[in-house]
């Protein structure tokens, strides 16, 4: 920290892009003591980097990767071989009202929307999490498959570890065999923080897992079957977290025990006019939740599914509005629309498709342009180049019409 803080320069904003969780933690802590704000954008595409610069002209990117092609002034994380002498001094006091980070969500205007996070609310939220997970006062090792830049990883690996004195695993294991190996390398009690996509792969691969004391899951609702399978195969408890980038985590459940979620202290939901709003407790501002929630008690609810515009692919979130905006801003695109593709067989991840009117562009060129603007997870599958979009008489584009167009296209391709 003593080496990183001065290297961060004079600007007030730092985009912490460190891939190694330890480097990220040190970078984050350095920002705290150096009075800088950490920026946590959802993707690292060139377009988002440009928008980050518009948000904060003095932003620098802290990176620990030898080859970093992020188009911002870069600060290299100092990787020395000898450890620095331990810093003497008291634990720094961070004012609870201080904005320590901004997280970003994809707005329908095509510009990411910034959400401030204050230290007091973040810490209150994560202390409650530790208590609910049974981890307060029990030092454990945390292995996470999620990056610390994502709100879930930020809360449930980085902050959870920092605030409660747990051991954080620097790496981010990907393949099932690597997850098992990472768990093997740490002593018990060990906690796995992961997502439905990874848990499904873990269970499906048949890899033997060392005894894990707790599994935490978030970013998308876990099916009851998969939850049961995980608890059985791993002989452990699985706890699920519900939240959003804007609000942070706001509810928890044990899916094998009950489908009901229990809200964080002080958080209230109001449902009306087809909209659900969350506020209170550690939530910074009243926030519209992009899921359909049904209140079942003062602090409990059921989750019924997403609002139509929301796109969640393997835990990465966007909106059809945002994606459409990016698509239509590409030179040569006359009209274009994303849609939710049909649910694939075998519970593989559902994608978004797109129908595009762009007479002068070939599909590869279009995809290359999209890659500059949106995360790879949202690249359209299928991508249909069409003469015109199936707009109805009021100019609207029903999702069903887009999917029908896609189905017709693949049938004719198969027949042709």
């Amino acid at each position: 920290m003593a080496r990183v803080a001065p290297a961060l320069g004079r600007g007030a904003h730092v985009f912490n892009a460190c891939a190694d969780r330890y480097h990220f933690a040190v970078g984050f802590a350095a920002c705290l003591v150096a009075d800088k704000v950490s920026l946590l954008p959802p993707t690292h595409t060139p377009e988002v980097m440009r928008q980050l610069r518009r948000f904060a002209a003095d932003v620098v990117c802290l990176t620990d990767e030898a080859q970093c092609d992020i188009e911002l002034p870069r600060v290299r994380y100092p990787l020395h071989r000898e450890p620095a002498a331990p810093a003497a001094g008291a634990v720094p006091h961070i004012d609870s009202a201080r904005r320590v980070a901004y997280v970003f969500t994809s707005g329908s205007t095509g510009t990411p929307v910034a959400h401030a996070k204050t230290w007091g609310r973040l810490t209150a939220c994560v202390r409650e999490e530790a208590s609910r997970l049974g981890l307060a006062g029990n030092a454990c090792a945390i292995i996470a498959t999620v990056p610390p830049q994502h709100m879930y990883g930020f809360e449930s690996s980085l902050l959870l570890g920092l605030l409660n004195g747990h051991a954080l695993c620097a790496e981010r294991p990907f393949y099932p065999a690597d997850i098992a190996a990472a768990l093997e390398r740490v002593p018990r009690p060990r906690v796995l923080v992961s997502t439905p996509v990874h848990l499904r792969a873990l269970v499906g691969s048949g890899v033997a897992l060392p005894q894990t004391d707790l599994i935490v899951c978030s970013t998308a609702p876990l099916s009851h079957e998969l939850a049961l399978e995980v608890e059985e195969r791993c002989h452990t408890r699985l706890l699920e977290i519900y939240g959003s980038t804007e609000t942070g985590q706001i509810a928890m459940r044990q899916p094998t025990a009950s489908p009901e979620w229990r809200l964080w202290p002080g958080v209230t939901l109001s449902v009306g006019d087809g909209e659900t709003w969350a506020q209170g407790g550690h939530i910074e501002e009243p926030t519209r939740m992009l899921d359909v929630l049904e209140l079942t008690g003062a602090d409990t609810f059921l989750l019924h599914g997403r609002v139509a515009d929301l796109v969640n692919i393997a835990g990465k979130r966007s909106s059809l509005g945002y994606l459409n905006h990016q698509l239509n801003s590409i030179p040569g695109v006359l009209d274009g629309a994303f849609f939710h593709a049909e649910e694939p067989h075998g519970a593989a991840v559902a994608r978004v498709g797109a129908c595009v009117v762009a007479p002068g562009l070939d599909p590869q060129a279009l995809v290359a342009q999209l890659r500059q603007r949106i995360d790879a997870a949202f690249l359209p599958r299928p991508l249909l180049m069409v003469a015109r979009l199936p707009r109805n008489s009021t100019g609207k584009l029903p999702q069903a019409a887009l999917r029908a167009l896609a189905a017709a296209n693949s049938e004719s391709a198969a027949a042709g």
Partner: protein
Amino acid sequence: MSDKVSPLKQPASAGAEAELTGEVAALIVEALNLDLSPAAIDPEKPLYGEGLGLDSIDILEIALVVSKRYGVQLRADAEGNGEIFGSLRRLVQYIGAHRTR
């Protein structure tokens, strides 16, 4: 007859590799619900990123179906693993060398 036969495995013949290539290509197309025929995957082009356009979600899915079908568990630090998805041919060769089913 080759005089470099290992005690455990025969070096893959060209025919066996071609057959495995077809199998793995079909597995990928089916698992990812891709809108193209297995024969259309160029064995030399990168699978990840700008080649076939797969992302990390797809890679995990492929790793899963490969483990189920061939008993191969992919690891991030496996020899040049960044290269395994460098092309269909490399993936097929890796599977051929490590399969237990």
